[in-house]
């Protein structure tokens, strides 16, 4: 009788653990399938497989794996908002935690969410010297994006310039740092004043030489035509009034354009450097963590 009870108990326990075992097996199989699809760059199909999971029924580790792969697929599809959302949801216990945190932080930096990226980057896991240097490098890149040159200078002290995966990018980052610091501060008001004195000169000052010449010629032509009208037909003539009005419009427009040109040039300069910094921040991530 005792033996029978023991067997019965064993049977019940065994029976009860079957669904949990089946669920784990199903998740593992489906996740492997989704990963196989992701490796084949069949993003739509992989997303479709991942979306079919009922998150309520998953364990914490399964949810982590799911969040990682969904984020990674979104990252591959350049949906960086969705990518950072999922990647940063992966918990510390997951084997994908390190990779998810680094890529999630990078996605935030790319989306101009620089403060959030900074908060994540401060706590990036760095269990070995390579990742320690990578973390410093990523934080330094972000500091440059935020134009915090002092912070960059502090963080670059951790650059070794000898790591195979980082040395080239570290050197380039230093060049960007110097380039950004050497940026001349140009005043929109001064550009406007210069264009008031000589049409187009403000654009030349802003760094837009061709635009400066292109602005000078029509203003000069209108001015000459107005002067000719004034000289030959007098100040009340239609010719003088017409060309004089056109000259005024071109002249004032050129002053306004020169003040804007300073801002446009500055934005172009900053955007150019931001793209280069983000590109170089990305390369070591792919080399060191995309395994």
């Amino acid at each position, binding site marked *: 009788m005792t033996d029978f009870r023991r067997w019965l108990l064993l049977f019940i326990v065994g029976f009860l653990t079957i669904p949990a075992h089946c669920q784990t097996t199903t998740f593992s199989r489906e996740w492997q*399938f989704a990963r*196989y*699809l992701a490796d*084949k760059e*069949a993003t*739509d*199909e992989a997303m*479709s*497989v991942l979306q079919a999971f009922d998150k309520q029924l998953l364990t914490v580790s399964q949810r982590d794996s799911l969040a990682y792969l969904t984020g990674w697929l979104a990252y591959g599809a350049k949906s960086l908002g969705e990518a950072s959302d999922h990647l940063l949801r992966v918990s510390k216990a997951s084997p994908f935690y390190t990779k998810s945190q680094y890529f999630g932080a990078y996605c935030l930096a790319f989306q101009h969410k620089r403060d959030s990226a900074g908060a994540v980057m401060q706590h990036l896991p760095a269990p070995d010297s390579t990742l320690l240097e990578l973390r410093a490098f990523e934080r330094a890149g972000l500091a440059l994006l935020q134009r915090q040159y002092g912070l960059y200078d502090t963080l670059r002290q951790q650059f070794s310039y000898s790591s195979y995966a980082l040395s080239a990018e570290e050197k380039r980052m230093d060049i960007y740092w110097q380039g950004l610091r050497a940026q001349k501060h140009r005043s929109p008001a001064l550009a406007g004043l210069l264009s008031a004195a000589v049409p187009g000169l403000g654009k030349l000052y802003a760094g837009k030489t061709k635009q400066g010449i292109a602005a000078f010629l029509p203003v000069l*032509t209108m001015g*000459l*035509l107005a*002067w*000719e*009208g004034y000289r*030959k037909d007098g100040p009340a003539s239609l*010719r003088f009034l017409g060309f004089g009005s056109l000259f005024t419009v071109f002249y004032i427009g050129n002053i306004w354009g020169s003040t804007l040109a300073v801002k446009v040039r500055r934005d172009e300069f900053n955007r150019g450097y931001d793209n280069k910094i983000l590109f170089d921040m990305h390369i070591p991530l792919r080399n060191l963590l995309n395994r």
Partner: protein
Amino acid sequence: MTTKFYLICIFLCGICSIAKAQLPLSTADSLVASGQFLAARVAYERVLFTSAEPIIRFSAAVGKARCLKQQGLYASAVTFLNSQIQTDYADSLLYPLRQEQILCAYLAGQFENTLSLLERLPYLHPGMSATPLLIAVRVLSLNELKRWSEAAVAYRELAAHIQADSVNLNPYQQLPRLKSEKKAQWLSTFIPGAGQLYAGKPGEAALSILVQSAGLYFGVLSYLQGYYLSAWGIGAGLFGSFHAGGVRRAEVLVQELNHKRAAMFNARARQKILEMIK
């Protein structure tokens, strides 16, 4: 008696294993039939993921390519089939996959790629002769690339292959007459509006002559009246701008005309060729 029993068991096991392997494939096929192409793509991929049987994998690959075609994702189908062709299928299975890839490449507008894939086919499958469909795809791709003389040769090959009348039905007897962009530019440079007229746009030619003449007239008149700056700034400026614009416009009009003529010819040829291979 025992032998019989074992034989029956083996037979049933065999039947069951084949049925089990084909079950996901039939699920995918039914998803295609109900128009759920993404779900069907996943189902076909599942077959490719789980099955090691070449014939079943081949059916799944063809099925997925068909889904991508239904969704208009021809370029994705080309890439997908490329990955499938890398696997070790038998030649008899690889040939239809390559044929499907060529069709998808044509539908994706990758005409150079289509021709390149077609060129490789005789070397990869020396025993197989080109089907009328593949020859037709070659003709159509050459048409799209405006390589009509080569297309005419391929067309004759197709006609001979299917024993069709290659003389009376031949669309290449009269090739589209394309005009020269350079000639249009030169004409407009020396005779205002002539380039537009050459491109078959008399209205635009008249407008170009009118605006250039107006600029010139204003310039001359201003000069005669002593308004030298106006003569230069407005008269010559307007004339120069409209003249340069007229030259550029003549070139664009000839491009448009050539494109239109080529598209019309290609559409007519396509219709005839498709009727031939029907």
